[in-house]
Each structure stands twice: as structure tokens, then as C-alpha cells.
């Protein structure tokens, strides 16, 4: 009769208590796995949303462009954008290379004039790799690199009182300091997820922005979109080397540095998840320790008998710890199955989460199968149960034999 078989039989002895204690483990593990999966899914959604909302995976610009801010970066614009694009295109892992001109100006319908944040871009590859071309509320996305049309945010369009097919005047300061104005057609309206951006945003073709600002072939930055987000660090190094080899002195920044709020949100999630985890573990420890203490008390005379017939104190202690470990492992297996079932139900429930701060659109509730949460949950439950068993087991092992044998 080995230790584990004896532990299994002892657990089967009081089925109701074992089921209750196991239920706590199942609940704890399920909560851990689901919360971890939800957090991972949310962070992944936030990460990809950040990248696909325009940031891309890596941005290249002249040194100093990043310090001057995105909309002042034409002072440090790239003059040989076509050659830089060519050097980046076709490199391993690169999905798209997106030249952009960022600028500010005034938009007017002849009556009202409202400041805007303009983005001159190459519409076709942008539509392939970014989300905002897909958020059209009306009309269509820009069709070509030199199209004389604009897609403003719905908030800006509403403030100007213009719709698809209307003409607006864009005013901006050219790179040599003169004021320039162009009449352009509104070809579509984009509903951007962040309201503040929706109220100010105007997408134009690269050619239109270049004409308005008289930049010639100059662009503000070049955005690189990769096939895999996890390759960002290696791609940054490799692409930087390629550009240096081609004679360009450019600075590359990964998306994490360009969107620091992602790191802040991640820390916030970790804090909330950690706090919940501590509460969960505390509840499991207290409940399981209590159950194990009752078990030890009930089996005091048996412990005395085992010690009397030659069982070492450590073996008695190990017997209770084995019971805790078996309970933890079986609880984790049941918890994993339950969490998969709950995940399936939640993911098919059609529940939509409210939009995060600053955003206008909610997202569907999705819980990911997050291996780390399952692994960490199993480890936490195992350590918790072993700890919860160890305390009463130690007490049982140290009990004087005669006292244990006469326990009533």
C-alpha cells in the first residue's frame, strides 16, 4: 500500500467533505483560468488594436522627429521616402510599409472653421493592414495615392455639417511657412473608436497632403507592419541594420514605446489580477486548512495507531500532504474542464463589453485559453493545498503518540 493509494482511499472516506474542499479548488482554479484568459484576451485585443489603429509595429523617422511630436515632425521629414520604402519592403517578416505625412490645419465648409489633425497616407496598403479604413460610417475609403478626396471622422464632419459628396476647404501651413488651401471632396466618413480623435481626424491621400503642404517627396514617418507582433524586437534590429547598410541614419521605435498607455494598462490589469489572486488564494487556504484540520482531528486516534506501529512522523505528515496534493491536482483537472465549458458559453453568449475610456465602441466578451493562467492556476492551487495540508499535518506528526491513542 503506497502513500498515494492510501491518500486516495482516505479522500474517498469522507466524500462530502472531499467534494466540498475539491469544489473550492475547482472554483479557485476556474476563476484563475478565466480571469487570466480574459486579461490575456483583453491585453491582446488592446495590443493589436493599438497596432492596427495606426501605430503599426515599428515607425522609422529622422532622429529628433520623435521628440518633436507626431504632428510637428515634418521639420525632421524624410526626403528620400521612396528609397527608404524600397529598402524596407520585402525584408523578412515585413507585411506592409506605410509612408505617412502628419500635419495640422483648419477645415472649413465656408461658414465654420475647425482645426483638424491630418494624415496623408497611401490608402490601399493602409486599408490592408489598419483598422480605421474599415470603420466607415458612410461613403468609401480613399482609392489611390493621389486622390483629391478626404475621409474625416464622423465627429468632425458633424461639427462642420458636411457629408459624403460635400466639399470642404483644408488650410495648412506649407513647409516654407506660407498658408495654402485646397478644396476637396468628402468621399467617406470614418467612425473612429476614440471620440477625441473622431472629432479632429482627417485622412487624405499622400499626394493631397504633399500638395497642401508643398512637401515634394518628403514624408513624416514610415510605418512598418509585420506579419507577427511577437517578432517586433528582432525585426526592429534587422530593419535598422538594413537601413544603416543602405546609408540611412534613421531612428526606429517599436509600438510599445509609441503607445506607452499599453504598458500602463497592462500594469493596471496585472495589479487588479494580482489583488484578486491574493484574495482567492487566501480564501482557498483558509477553507482547505479548516477542512484538513477537521480531518486530522477526526483521525487523531488513527494517527496514534500509525505512529505506534512504526510509522515515522515524516511519513504521517507526507500522507496528509499527499491528500492535499491529490485534491489539488484532481481539482485543477476538473477546474480546467469547467473553465473550458464556461469559456465556450461566454464566448458564444454575445455579451458586448462597454467601451473603454475614450473609446466609442464596445467589444464582444471573449475569453482566451491562456496557457500561463492554467499553469499558474495549477501551481498556485497545488502550493496552496500542500501548504493548507502541511500545517495540520505537521501538528498531527508532532502529536504525542499516547495522547493521540487516547483521543476521544
Amino acid at each position, binding site marked *: *500500500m503506497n502513500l498515494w493509494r492510501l491518500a486516495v*482511499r482516505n479522500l474517498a472516506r469522507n466524500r462530502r467533505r472531499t467534494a466540498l474542499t475539491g469544489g473550492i479548488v475547482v472554483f479557485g482554479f476556474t476563476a484563475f483560468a478565466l480571469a487570466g484568459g480574459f486579461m490575456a484576451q483583453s491585453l491582446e485585443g488592446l495590443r493589436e488594436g493599438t497596432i492596427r489603429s495606426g501605430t503599426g509595429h515599428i515607425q522609422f523617422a529622422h532622429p529628433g522627429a520623435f521628440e518633436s511630436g507626431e504632428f510637428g515632425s515634418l521639420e525632421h521629414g524624410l526626403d528620400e521616402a521612396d528609397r527608404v520604402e524600397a529598402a524596407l519592403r520585402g525584408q523578412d517578416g515585413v507585411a506592409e510599409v506605410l509612408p505617412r505625412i502628419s500635419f495640422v490645419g483648419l477645415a472649413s465648409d465656408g461658414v465654420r472653421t475647425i482645426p483638424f489633425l491630418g494624415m496623408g497616407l497611401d490608402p490601399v496598403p493602409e486599408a490592408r493592414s489598419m483598422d480605421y479604413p474599415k470603420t466607415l460610417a458612410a461613403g468609401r475609403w480613399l482609392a489611390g495615392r493621389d486622390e483629391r478626396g478626404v475621409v474625416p471622422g464622423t465627429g468632425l464632419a458633424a461639427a462642420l455639417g458636411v457629408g459624403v459628396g460635400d466639399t470642404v476647404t483644408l488650410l495648412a501651413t506649407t513647409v516654407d511657412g506660407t498658408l495654402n488651401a485646397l478644396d476637396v471632396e468628402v468621399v467617406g466618413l470614418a467612425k473612429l473608436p476614440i471620440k477625441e480623435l473622431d472629432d479632429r481626424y482627417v485622412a487624405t491621400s499622400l499626394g493631397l497632403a504633399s500638395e497642401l503642404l508643398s512637401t515634394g517627396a518628403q514624408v513624416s514617418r514610415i510605418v512598418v507592419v509585420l506579419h507577427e507582433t511577437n517578432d517586433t524586437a528582432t525585426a526592429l534590429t534587422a530593419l535598422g541594420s538594413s537601413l544603416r547598410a543602405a546609408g540611412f541614419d534613421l531612428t526606429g521605435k517599436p509600438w510599445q514605446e509609441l503607445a506607452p498607455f499599453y504598458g500602463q494598462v497592462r500594469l493596471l490589469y496585472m495589479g487588479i489580477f494580482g489583488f484578486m489572486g491574493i484574495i482567492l488564494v487566501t480564501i482557498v487556504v483558509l477553507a482547505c486548512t479548516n477542512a484538513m484540520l477537521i480531518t486530522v482531528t477526526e483521525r487523531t486516534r488513527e494517527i496514534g495507531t500509525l505512529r505506534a506501529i512504526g510509522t*515515522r512522523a515524516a511519513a504521517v505528515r507526507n500522507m496528509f500532504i499527499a491528500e492535499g496534493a491529490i485534491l489539488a491536482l484532481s481539482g485543477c483537472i476538473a477546474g480546467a474542464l469547467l473553465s473550458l465549458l464556461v469559456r465556450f458559453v461566454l464566448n458564444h453568449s454575445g455579451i458586448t463589453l462597454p467601451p473603454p475610456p475614450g473609446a466609442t465602441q464596445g467589444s464582444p466578451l471573449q475569453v482566451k485559453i491562456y496557457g500561463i493562467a492554467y499553469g499558474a492556476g495549477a501551481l498556485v492551487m497545488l502550493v496552496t493545498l500542500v501548504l493548507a495540508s502541511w500545517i495540520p499535518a505537521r501538528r498531527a506528526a508532532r502529536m*504525542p503518540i*499516547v495522547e493521540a491513542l487516547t483521543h476521544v
Partner: protein
Amino acid sequence: MLLSQPVLVAQNLASIIHSQMNPTGTIVLAGEGLCRTYRLGSTLVPALRGVDVEIQRGDFLVLQGPSGSGKSTLINLLGLLDCADAGRVLLDGQGVSAMSEEALADLRRDRIGFIFQNFNLIPVLTAAENVSYPMALKGLPDDEIRRRARELLEAVGLADRADARPDLLSGGERQRVAIARALANAPEVIFADEPTACLDTDTAAGVLDLMRTLNERNKTAFVIATHDPHVVARARRALTLQDGRIVEGS
């Protein structure tokens, strides 16, 4: 009762001389000047007050006396379940007081058996597994454990009940399983504290017959604490305790 250092030295010396006078080693266990006091709240209750006792190989010794006379306390001390406040226990002439908990556990496993009033079988184990348990603790090979458990259950007349759990056994059957378990590692001494107290007269007689037979056949010493006159009548040797002292027998 606390003994002074010179008295202890003298007792040690006597023990050495005594063991040299018994070169055949017939004395397996001995207690010398055993004292044990329990604390009940703020009151100290002396349970043993300087008891000397020797257990020989093949002995069938009965400890009798009224409740509270110190019978169980003496069994606990000689069975290495408890430590004396004064005096010492000698196993093969060697003192055990300096031994570690682990060493004492190994001695109980290998050289001492116990039979309890309430049988104290492990409820989740079958009769065969209960008998096998001490052998498994000792690390005997599985084949040998199975063979010996079967032989022991046959010896106590329970071969056909090997797979029954204790809750399916009668009181007499449980006590016979307990006897088989006590014999598992072929100990030199088996301590039985009121082994017939929970049994009816006929069953008690059967259990007693069994212990006597095993004692004669295996030369295993039995030390039995009892109130039962039938047990006393079957004893080869009897000691009467009263108020923590031996008042009759030697």
C-alpha cells in the same frame, strides 16, 4: 519519583552486570525505576512510582490492577510510545532514552507489536492490507509481504476474510486481524492493552487461546494489561500494580 544521579549510575551498573549474567539474552526488554507523572490542569498525578520489570523472550506476562494503577502507562513506556520522567527502558540491555524519534519508530516497527482494546485497524485498508502495512513500512518485497500476510491471516483463522474492510468484520475478527498485524514483522514482544475488553466471553477466550498458541509456537513475548480474570488465569507470570507500584509478583 525522581532518582538521584548516584542511584541511576548504580542502576546502569546493575543492568550491565545483569545482562552479562544473562549471556543467552533471554531478557528482551527491561524497565528500571520507571516513573511517570501526568499533569492534569495544575495537578500532578503520578502514574508510575519507580517500577522495575523484565520481559523475557517467550514470556506471557499479565499486568493486573485496578483502573489508574499504572498498567497502561507501563505498557506505553516499555512499548517505546512514551518517555519516562525517571528511570530507563533497556532493549537488549541498551538504554533507549537517547534514541531519536525515528530510531524509536523503527524499533516499534521491527521489534515490538501492539494490540489495542479498540482494535485500532486502519479503516480504509482491508484485513490483508492492515496486516501488510508494518511489513511495507519495513520495506519488505511485495511478494514476501503478500505471502506472509496470507500466512498470518491463515494463522489467525481469517484467510477467507483477507479482502474485507474492518467495518465488515466482527469484533473478534478485528482483534484477530490486529493480532496478525502485531505479528507481521515477527516482533520479540507484543503489548496488548485490555485486548479482550470489547469482546464477548467466547470471542475473548478464542482471542486469548490464539495469543497463547502464538506465544508458545513463535516464542513471542506477550505483555497484557487486563482486568479480565480469565486472562490472568492463563498467564505464565502476573504482576499486580497499585498506585503506580508493583505490589505483587516479580
